[in-house]
């Protein structure tokens, strides 16, 4: 049996579906966060010496950094689908994902800065990863700024989608330029990280929290997309008939 994907691309169908999924994602996010933090804080103390306690910030820092990058890919994916198939829902999804992505970017910068202050003795340096993260923040802000600067929603959607696509073409180039501007020397404050070097308890907490952030992103993006749907479709019959609208 073939699934009619375009059926779910209609806001009217997607709205209730998203509504039903939000609680699941929200609860998963809460449970996993609690578990991850518990594990990170109470099951790992033995391996961290006293001056290394701040290392625990890794449980927020690294998942946030991962999510920030992944969400940009998601954003661009929706943008491409929107431009190709001209489905309104994809634009709405893109617009709904952006603030969460920006938030994680900021979170990773913020936690990284604190970590840096304690670990490297400086709030900020021009380490490649840090620089890339900063630029990612600019890209998110650019997307949101363009979207909010245009108040014809159709134009706003399409223009900012195009920007996201241009961004995603250039993002690898930008990151690659920052990481290795000179083929001979790739000095960085971040060590060449690999999972092997990380203690398994820490790794577990980190991974659990990554999944928790992921679930959180789903829940928040769905909530936001539902709001966007309500606002944009407020003049349609089906929105007027919704119980939460007509009361």
């Amino acid at each position: 049996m073939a699934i009619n994907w375009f059926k779910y691309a209609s806001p009217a169908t997607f709205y209730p579906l998203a509504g039903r999924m939000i609680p699941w994602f929200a609860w998963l996010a809460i449970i996993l966060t609690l578990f991850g933090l518990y594990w990170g804080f109470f099951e790992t103390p033995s391996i961290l010496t006293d001056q290394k306690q701040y290392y625990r910030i890794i449980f927020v820092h690294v998942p946030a950094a991962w999510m920030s990058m992944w969400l940009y890919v998601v954003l661009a994916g929706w943008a491409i689908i929107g431009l190709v198939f001209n489905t309104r829902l994809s634009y709405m999804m893109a617009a709904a994902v952006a603030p969460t992505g920006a938030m994680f970017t900021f979170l990773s910068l913020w936690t990284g800065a604190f970590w840096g202050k304690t670990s490297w003795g400086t709030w900020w340096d021009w380490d490649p990863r840090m620089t890339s993260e900063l630029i990612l923040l600019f890209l998110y802000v650019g997307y949101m700024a363009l979207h909010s600067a245009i108040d014809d929603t159709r134009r706003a959607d399409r223009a900012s989608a195009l920007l996201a696509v241009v961004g995603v073409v250039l993002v690898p180039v930008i990151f690659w330029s920052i990481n290795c501007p000179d083929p001979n020397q790739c000095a960085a404050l971040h060590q060449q990280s690999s999972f092997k070097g990380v203690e398994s308890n820490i790794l577990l907490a980190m991974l659990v929290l990554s999944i928790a952030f992921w679930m959180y992103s789903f829940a928040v993006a769905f909530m936001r997309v539902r709001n966007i749907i309500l606002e944009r479709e407020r003049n349609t019959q089906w929105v007027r008939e919704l119980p939460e609208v007509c009361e």
Partner: protein
Amino acid sequence: MFQTFKTVLARDILLATRRRTDVLTALFFFLIVISLFPLGVGIESEVLRRIGPGVVWVAALLASMLALERLFASDFADGTLEQMLLVPQPLGIVVFAKVTAHWLLTGLPLVLIAPLIGLQYHLPGATQGVMMLALLLGTPVLSLIGAIGAALTLGLRGGGILISLLVLPLYIPVLIYGSGAVSASMMDGAAVQAYLFILGAFLLLAVVFSPWATAAALRISVE
């Protein structure tokens, strides 16, 4: 098709020469920014030599970006852009012609003036050649990428400064490799070639993709 390219190119250059100042202002802006730095930073030649390549490239970025705003805005305001969208030729051609004119008027002068800057910042002779070459390869990329931003922000209030927000992050690779090439030429001649090669690759990519992205952006913005 070539006829269209030629007409648009000639038109934009004619428009610029009508106001003679236009041709020179990007250049002057560049020069002024470059000259402001020693005033703010101090005039020790060691420091200047150190920051010279970076300053030149940042100034080039800003000059190119500043001029970008006008790329489509005035055509948009008086309705001629609408007419260009109705030209019976691919819009990408028109865009490419406009960007070419823009580069000839704002990018090329920077390339030609480069040696003068070399003097201001005490850069050695060989470096100046590299700088010109790097600017020659890099500034068209700036114009091409910038055009996309200019098209997207068309007719928006605060367009000028919104463009910078969208476009400056995308300029970063050019900045890094451009100033990298110049810095490298002061230390190690061999690495220069790799830098220039990468800049060339950027240019090729930009020429192929940017006009079409810009055209798409224009269609969205004019609607």
